[in-house]
């Protein structure tokens, strides 16, 4: 059985998001498997970023439940109990369960540990690369600085915490090959480096789920390959589940364990990359065709793309 069914990290049920009269996402159900790289794909305007914004709390969903079980699987009964209780999160028999639709964006990042990047990179351009990674560890450092009081007097405990934060930042800088540029302003980095830095910054928040909004957009083939490797290492070495929106099919087919296809705010396919690739509805939606012959043509095109993957 697939991991997203046997051990879901995040379970989205009946997610609907309306903006005035426009329904961007409607009755969306999906599970994100623990330890998977899950890709959310679909044509432009399909509602992918809206789903992201709902998961990360930037939008309050019109309807729906988003349950995240941080450790160990949560039984449907436990989710029901939490839903009825009206709280935002609970610790139930070793599993920490969060209802994301009830939480504010910063709480989701801080407590539920869902980190994200943005389609149009949002680095702190006027701060250095190192500072960007330190800000990501804000909550830990805030605790260590005793809500600033200990920090004012630079107590040993705070110094230790700050050294640890710098060490983690350095580790990530080395992983993304930006160690040499640690003291440069983030806004002065080339585009590809900014993309990687944004991922590293999100990873510095110590997430269980990393949401990446088009991480390969604007990257050249070499950078794309580096990105693929980075995503795999995040999954395999850090044990962090990844949810990504991506248009670059070669990246999607290479790294994902699970692909979800969204079109006009509805899920049209959900499964392993192989299955999804062969799904005629996906091909039709993606290429905007409805003619049988064109579907076949498109299919072969997709197969050609898949051929690039090892």
């Amino acid at each position, binding site marked *: 059985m697939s991991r997203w069914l046997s051990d879901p990290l995040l379970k989205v049920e009946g997610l609907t998001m309306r903006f005035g009269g426009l329904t961007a996402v409607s009755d969306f159900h999906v599970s994100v498997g623990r330890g998977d790289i899950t890709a959310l794909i679909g044509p432009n305007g399909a509602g992918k970023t809206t789903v992201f914004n709902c998961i990360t709390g930037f939008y309050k969903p019109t309807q729906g439940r988003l349950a995240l079980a941080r450790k160990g699987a949560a039984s449907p009964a436990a989710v029901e109990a939490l839903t009825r209780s009206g709280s935002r999160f609970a610790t139930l028999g070793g599993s920490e369960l969060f209802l994301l639709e009830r939480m504010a964006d*910063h709480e989701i990042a801080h407590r539920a540990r869902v980190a994200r990047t943005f389609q149009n990179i*949002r680095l702190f351009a*006027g701060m250095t690369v*190192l500072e960007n990674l330190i800000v990501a560890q804000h909550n830990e450092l805030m605790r260590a*600085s005793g809500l600033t009081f200990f920090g004012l007097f630079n107590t040993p405990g705070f110094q230790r915490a700050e050294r640890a934060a710098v060490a983690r930042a350095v580790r990530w800088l080395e992983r993304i090959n930006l160690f040499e540029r640690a003291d440069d302003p983030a806004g002065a980095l080339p585009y590809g480096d900014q993309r990687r830095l944004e991922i590293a910054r999100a990873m510095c928040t110590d997430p269980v789920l990393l949401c990446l909004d088009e991480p390969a957009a604007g990257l050249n083939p070499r950078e794309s390959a580096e990105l693929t490797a980075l995503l795999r290492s995040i999954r395999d070495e850090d044990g962090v589940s990844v949810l990504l929106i991506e248009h670059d099919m070669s990246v999607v087919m290479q790294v994902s364990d699970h692909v979800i296809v969204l079109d006009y705010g509805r899920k049209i396919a959900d499964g392993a990359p192989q299955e999804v690739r062969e799904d005629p509805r996906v091909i039709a939606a993606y290429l905007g065709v409805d003619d049988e012959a064109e579907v076949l043509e498109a299919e072969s095109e997709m197969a050609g793309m898949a051929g690039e993957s090892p």
Partner: protein
Amino acid sequence: MAAQQDHQRPDMARALVDAGFAALVTFGLSFPILALRTEQDMQNRLVVEQRWSWAIVAVVAVFCARLLAGLLSDWRARAVAIPGALIGVYGAHLALTVGPANGAGIVAFGLALLIGAFPLDARLRETPAAVAKPNVEGPDHSRLMSIAGIVALFVFPFVMLAWLGPQGSLKWINNYGVQILIYVMLGWGLNIVVGLAGLLDLGYVAFYAVGAYSYALLSTTYGLSFWICLPLAGVLAAFWGVILGFPVLRLRGDYLAIVTLAFGEIIRVVLINWSDFSNGYAGISSIPRVTFFGVPFTAADNGFAAMMGLEFTPIHRTIFLYFLILCLALLTNAVTLRLRALPIGRAWEALREDEIACRSLGVNTVNTKLTAFALGAMFGGFAGSFFAVRQNFVSPESFTFIESATILAIVVLGGMGSQIGVALAAVAMIGGTEILRELDFLKRIFGEGFDPAQYRMLIFGLAMVVMMIWKPRGLISSRTPSIFLKTKRAVAGALVREGQG
């Protein structure tokens, strides 16, 4: 450098057309407001007097200035020639209205400047403009410089005292020293809110007022000493900062600005009208003066002078006030610099850079904004209670929007977030306007009718415009990183954002 780098020969015809157009516009602008003056006559009836010479002076002055700007290509030559032309025009006006003897010298002086500017311009045009210095990383002098600066600030009153005596130095220590330092402190306080956290606060004066009235009321009603009231004033101001900040900090950008402005005005109107509490327009007078930790600055036997075995002079109190505000300002600076290197300070700056990214990283933006607001308010409160003890009188007059605007201008002109920039801007803006009071000697040159003090605020407003055009990002726009791995390199101002809130 804002120097015009185009070194082509200026075009006479174009400059003339340009200047002619500017003169025409000036004529249109000055036609009713400058050329005709309304005056009340004996029966209190408003009558209009004609005063065309003023309009003509304005038109000729603008024509000359514009023409010279067109003919001279280097800004330094312009900076010599245009004042020369203005002085010349003024002198000519004097010569025509008062008498040739009064104006001739001034005209000659103006013309000399003007004519001298042309060879200067030619010379500057020959020499290629200095290439902007690359950012060479020399040894870090900033620490040495700041220590030297602080030492200079501490010896300043004694140097003045030794040089000018108790009478002569009073003005320098009080009007320049204390006055400028109050604004340095207010600028540093507001810098936390505007410069670091990027929240536009147009009502900062409200917290200054809370601090001042806290001391005034607590000391006059409960007889509490200044040293108890000072922290209380800070706490009260911070408390008001939170009360006012909590509902409005969700607002973005200019909405926040207008609501803070509204709160500033509300507090002033309440102070004016709630007479039982604040004594209204009349204000609160005979607020206890500052003491040397309990020892009063009086001529009495238990006074400071007698205790120290000095001859009594009021300058002792002024010098003490100077050191008091210096220490308060340095405390503000020290706390701000320390906070910048702490998570809270980094969160403020990150908030200024990108609020949405902050939220995605788990930063509680409401709390972060509130702490910035409350801390800024607290330092405003300290400064306010110092203001009250210095003046021993407070009234709502002192807390108008103009004060908020001045403090904000100091922060923006300083370069948002830069501590030393803010201090420099305070010196320029406050010191500059104080100097305008000192220009009485110009009367001897320009005739009795010339009263620079009258033009003080007019020049102040104009200076704000000119300085913004000259340096829109402030005097020091680069940002010093709060932490570094290998080398500390300033971040260019162009990359630093100024916040949405």
